[in-house]
């Protein structure tokens, strides 16, 4: 069975009263499939596209509660709304990353990655040395790009901040164009999460970026874990590349001891 770190999940999703029993069941199921660690990004759309500080605190507290219940399994990322400004961003990162031990920052669709408010986020991420996971989808020529980052936007963000690590989410959403956009940006990784398991993309990303720049992610619960894992395990790439995508790269980026 492969060792797996899932970098992109939403264990709590549009439910503010999910039971511990349901969470325990998810953990058991994921472990059965080889998932050793799971990054909780929070229930990011429960309060709309632009959540306020109070809502962010609620969502991040839920991620923290998951970590407390299953400390050897869950890892939390701090969900932020950059539009709330530098003071609010810093306060939540201080609380979540500084005090509660969150390992990264999650950004969704409050704003495009090219928005000026991103500067404060990237600065604080660099200070705390945590990666920024940016929701990204091919939205070129679409009105939704005001809030949804196209791969061009996320890649430009990573280029502007070479000392901050960026995870460009959703390989199937960024598609072939997004993979090509990411070539040569050493501080940027692509995650495999989301969408149906259309064939060929993992192979393409491996060929163009190298397996060292890809992280496995599922986007659970919108996706079924077993189907997401098979997207990598069944890919026509070397076994060693699968190991890096499924586990090693994330372990290195999140500072996880591979032997723990």
């Amino acid at each position, binding site marked *: 069975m492969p060792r797996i770190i899932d970098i992109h999940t939403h264990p709590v999703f549009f439910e503010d009263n999910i039971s511990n029993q349901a969470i325990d069941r998810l953990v058991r199921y994921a472990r059965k*499939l080889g998932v050793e660690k799971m990054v909780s990004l929070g229930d990011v759309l429960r309060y709309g596209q632009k959540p306020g500080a109070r809502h962010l605190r609620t969502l991040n507290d839920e991620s923290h509660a998951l970590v407390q219940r299953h400390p050897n399994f869950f890892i939390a990322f701090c969900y932020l709304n950059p539009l709330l400004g530098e003071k609010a961003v810093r306060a939540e990162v201080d609380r979540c990353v500084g005090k509660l031990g969150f390992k990264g920052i999650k950004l969704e669709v409050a704003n495009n990655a090219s928005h000026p408010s991103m500067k404060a986020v990237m600065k604080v991420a660099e200070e705390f040395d945590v990666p920024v996971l940016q929701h990204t989808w091919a939205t070129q020529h679409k009105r939704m790009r005001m809030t949804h980052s196209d791969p061009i936007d996320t890649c430009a963000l990573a280029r502007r901040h070479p000392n901050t690590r960026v995870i460009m989410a959703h390989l199937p959403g960024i598609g072939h164009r997004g993979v090509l956009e990411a070539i040569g940006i050493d501080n940027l990784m692509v995650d495999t999460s989301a969408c*149906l398991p259309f064939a060929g993309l993992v*192979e393409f990303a491996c060929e163009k970026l190298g397996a060292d720049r890809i992280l496995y992610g599922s986007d659970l619960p919108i*996706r079924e874990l*077993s*189907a997401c894992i098979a997207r990598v395990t069944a890919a026509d790439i070397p076994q060693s590349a699968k190991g890096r995508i499924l586990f090693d790269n994330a372990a290195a980026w999140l500072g996880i001891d591979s032997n723990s």
Partner: protein
Amino acid sequence: MKLIDTNVSFGEWPFGTVGITSAKRLRNHLDSCSIKTALVSHLATILNPEPDHGNQRLFRALKNEKELIPVPVINPALADWRERLDQYRDRYAIKAIKVFPNFHRFHLPSPTMDRLVEYTREHRIRLMINIRMVDERHQYFGLKIDGVTLKSLADFSARHGDLKFLCLGLYRPEILELADQCGNFLTDFSFADWQFLLEELLGKLPVERILFGSHSPIMVTRSNVDQLRCANIPQSRIRKIGRDNAKKFFGL
């Protein structure tokens, strides 16, 4: 357990880097994913103005592969569909036909389809309806084909209340919604996706109405196989979905 796959394509898909053009390679690929038998259509039938050319290529390619069952594509909007279908029946003893309403621009609830349905009843051929080939959000920008609408499926279902037909490519919310409206559709789950999916679907649909379909090779075959294999449902239900339902529906 060896599976029966109801949703497999042969040939090249022009909007991606995937495609299998050798019957032997297709068989080996399916074998490697524990799929013993597959119902296969040719991708060249979808974008061609008339599907017969692709169907003939399919019959020729699969003639020595008894576990790869050819499913010809019929466009009932074309004048010669009945002659073509007579010919396929006479020569190849077909089990099923597939239609692509939105690629071939005809309505499901229509006199055109009524005639085709009557033909399938008369000759005991199963009807498969392709709902979509890709996620609409990722279609090639020069060709946008929406999925078949739930309304047309519901109207078609009501028009032919005692006809059992298999839908290929419904999304999860569509299956759940249709389950409330129609009692005679069967479905694969290649485009349905959610944590613990099959448990949820089985809460709405009798197990007999869910069939395994991988949408291979356009989708990662192993993904849909594992979704079934890892489902937290009794093995007897996995066997029905993965094999027995298709065996019974298609008379295999």
